[in-house]
């Protein structure tokens, strides 16, 4: 079947969306942008294809709504099994890369010991992998770097201690290798991995009949043909795309938000390094926009920096800020100043949640100023970008919009991070139809 790919190369993450000819989302994929946009792009696309496979499985099983519980269980077993396959494949790559690095003068005396320590580390990682992908298991991240990294470090410390090999040596091998592994485009056929996963599911004998497996194989037979691709986002210019394959992220966000919520007239996007206020017409065509200029104050990175300063995970900031009953008054949106202010206030004994709530308010204040310069807020407004996932930011936004613009519907899609990629995919679909909007015709 024909598919249309939209890719949004952001400063933090790269997102891909696969659309079908009916403008329906088949799949979504996301990965960290790393230093290699090209790989990020192919990883995100592959992830979107994997997701698309599951959509096709669902369609095969009778629709995209809720399916019978046995089918749901089968599909989630299949997904876990597929993820495990993928993890094991990358783990093998990591092991090979680490082992290859054990050579030269440095390892003249210790080489063999280090190699066998590595073998032991990876043996243990492989052994514990199925449990990580077992039903109900929680993973902090879906990115290989994060999952493999935290376990490697823990296991290597143990193994190193027992084998009397310095932890630093093992750490260093990992650091060098993970970059190489991460920057290698995904290899191997997806269908092969799916077949392996199917095999594993039936082998595990969780009581799924052969019928389910057969129908899944049918769905695997549908070829996903990449008919047209459009890229957007900061990394777009570094890609070997020709001009008709590139659209501005402002146009893509406008169109993507329109597709999610057709009544959208104002879009606020807070991404890693920019904040955009966009006004769109009833067809999703951009009428006006404003974005932060030379300074990235008040963007997503601001929260990332604060999280680092507080030694917390990015996703933990919002929930903690929500606990505040008395937000601190912080006006500066300068990231560096905010760090100083944070330490200062902590030293004065102010509560962490109050300071955090104040910092969330500060970034939203800045976003609202950009919105107002773009032409204000019209009903309905759609909030997109990574920061839209942060409940404390959303709370402040709702408050400020109500104070300044009255009653306005604010849409936040759970998949809002894919808005730009969705718009890009729709541009791809239209381009394939011969409608080259956003490109001189």
């Amino acid at each position, binding site marked *: 079947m024909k598919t249309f790919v939209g890719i949004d190369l952001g400063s933090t993450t790269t997102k891909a969306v696969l659309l079908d000819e009916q403008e329906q989302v088949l799949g979504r994929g996301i990965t960290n942008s790393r230093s290699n946009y090209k790989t990020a792009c192919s990883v995100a696309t592959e992830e979107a294809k994997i997701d698309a496979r599951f959509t096709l499985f669902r369609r095969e099983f009778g629709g995209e709504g809720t399916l019978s519980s046995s089918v749901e269980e089968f599909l989630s077993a299949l997904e876990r099994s597929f993820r495990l396959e993928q993890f094991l494949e990358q783990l093998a790559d990591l092991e090979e890369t680490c082992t290859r690095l054990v050579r030269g003068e440095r390892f003249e005396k210790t080489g063999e010991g280090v190699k066998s320590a590595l073998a032991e580390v990876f043996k243990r990682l492989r052994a514990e992998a199925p449990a990580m992908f077992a039903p109900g298991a929680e993973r902090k991240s879906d990115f290989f770097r994060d999952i493999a990294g935290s376990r490697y470090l823990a296991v290597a410390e143990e193994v190193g201690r027992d084998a009397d090999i310095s932890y630093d040596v093992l750490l260093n091998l990992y650091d060098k290798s993970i970059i190489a592994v991460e920057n290698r485009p995904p290899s191997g056929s997806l269908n092969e991995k799916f077949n392996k996963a199917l095999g594993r599911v039936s082998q595990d004998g969780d009581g799924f009949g052969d019928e389910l497996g057969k129908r899944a194989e049918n769905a695997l037979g549908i070829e996903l043909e990449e008919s047209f691709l459009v890229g957007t986002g900061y990394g777009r210019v570094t890609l070997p795309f020709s001009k008709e394959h590139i*659209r*501005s992220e402002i146009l893509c966000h406008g169109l993507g938000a329109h597709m999610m919520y057709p009544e959208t007239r104002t879009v606020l996007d807070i991404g890693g390094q920019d904040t955009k206020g966009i006004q769109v017409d009833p067809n999703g065509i951009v*009428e*006006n*926009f404003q974005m932060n200029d*030379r300074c990235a104050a008040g963007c997503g990175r601001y929260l990332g920096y604060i999280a680092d300063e507080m030694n917390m995970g990015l996703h933990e900031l919002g929930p903690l800020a929500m606990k505040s009953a008395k937000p601190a008054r912080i006006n500066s949106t300068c990231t560096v100043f905010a760090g100083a202010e944070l330490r200062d206030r902590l030293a004065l004994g102010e509560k962490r949640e109050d300071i955090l709530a104040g910092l969330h308010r500060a970034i939203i204040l800045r976003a609202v100023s950009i919105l107002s310069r773009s032409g204000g807020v019209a009903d309905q407004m759609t909030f997109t970008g990574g920061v839209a996932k942060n409940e404390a930011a959303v709370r402040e936004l709702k408050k400020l919009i109500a104070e300044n613009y009255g009653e306005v519907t604010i849409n936040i899609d759970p998949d809002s991070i894919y808005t730009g990629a969705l718009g890009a995919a729709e541009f791809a679909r239209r381009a394939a139809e011969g409608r080259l*909007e956003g490109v*001189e015709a």
Partner: protein
Amino acid sequence: MKPSVVKAQPADVLKDASMLKQKEMMAAHYERLTSAPQAGEKVASTFVPGNLNELIMCFDLVNNLPEVNAIQSGLRKQSGQYIMEAERAGHSEDVCTYVKSDIGMMLKGNIGPNGKELPRPDVLLLSYTGCFTFLKWFELLREQYKCPTIFLQTPYMADGKVTPNMIQYMVKQLKEDVIPTLEEVSGVKFDIDRLREYLKKSAEAEDDLVHILQSGKNKPSPIDAYFGGIYYIGPIFGAFRGTDDAIDYYRFLREEVDERMLKGLGPVTPDGPMGEEKYRLVVEGPPNYTSFRQFWKMFYDEGATVVASSYTKVGGTYDYGFRHDPDRPLESLAEYCLGVYTNRNLPMRIDMLSDYINEYEADGLLINSIKSCNSFSAGQLLIMREVEKRTGKPAAFIETDLVDPRYFSAANVKNRLESYFQMIDQKRGSKGAAA
């Protein structure tokens, strides 16, 4: 898809013959300026908007323009260090960067573009035209040079019109203050017939300038009225208005432009002749000078030509009919100062930009908002909204600075420009689809 435009790949920057001619004129002027003390000539420093070049010439004074010096420093990549020097001397980060570039240049020995020291002014002549910072700038220079300062107060066109009272008020200042002080400084007696003679020459060159600027109405436009426009306004906004040199230059330029027009050619860019004209823009606000070529390239690489701009009116709104008039010498100097773009109120600016979009059949309005110039930037977003509303054409807003290299973020500007060009395409596409 049309094939991408194939451009000539010159070894060096391409320049029109007129640009080379202008370069010679500017070089000669800077030579005269830097050798003024040896030649026994006296120097008047003044500003571009509302400059009284013809009057200055009546007293054999050499015209020195600190704004133009700052622009030269920006183009020659010197302004960054000058600005830092001025900041070290206590000038805040938010101050007009022309001022800081000028002050910094002074602190670093006041070396002009020809590598020679610029002279101390003998008089500071300020015809205040809408920019409040000009006052403060000359206050600083007066402190430094301890020379006489003349302040010709130009009433702001707050109500959108010039009244007889305003003209009388200015003529009175010219007679009672400006002219007597200039006589005193220069030791030359004022001769009104000499002034008439210069004004006649001004008007002649002004006719040609208007013809050149209005050539942007053609499709394709043979000129870029913003980036190219900066060159075109150079002589007449500076020290050459009222001279034979200016008459020659504009006649020459007019022929050059007419020839391109006849051949159906677009503007000449630093990378060679412009390719296909895809977007016709009206631009409001001054350009960025520190990354001038890079900035321009972002336009011509995309096939965008600026067909009209407000910046080319800061030294006179000749296309609206004003000419220096030998029969009403002092009155026409007053009218000149009153009419310059910076002295026009917001509704007048909106009218002008909307007219340009309609008359030049432009695709829309682009505002280049200058970080350190409040006098230009105040009200620009309102201008943008109103022009959009009146013309129905899309507008966009970018932010850079005059001569502070720290305020030019190429990736950001490019991102916005590309978005804007695609927005124009999308609008065209949707109109085509609706039709």
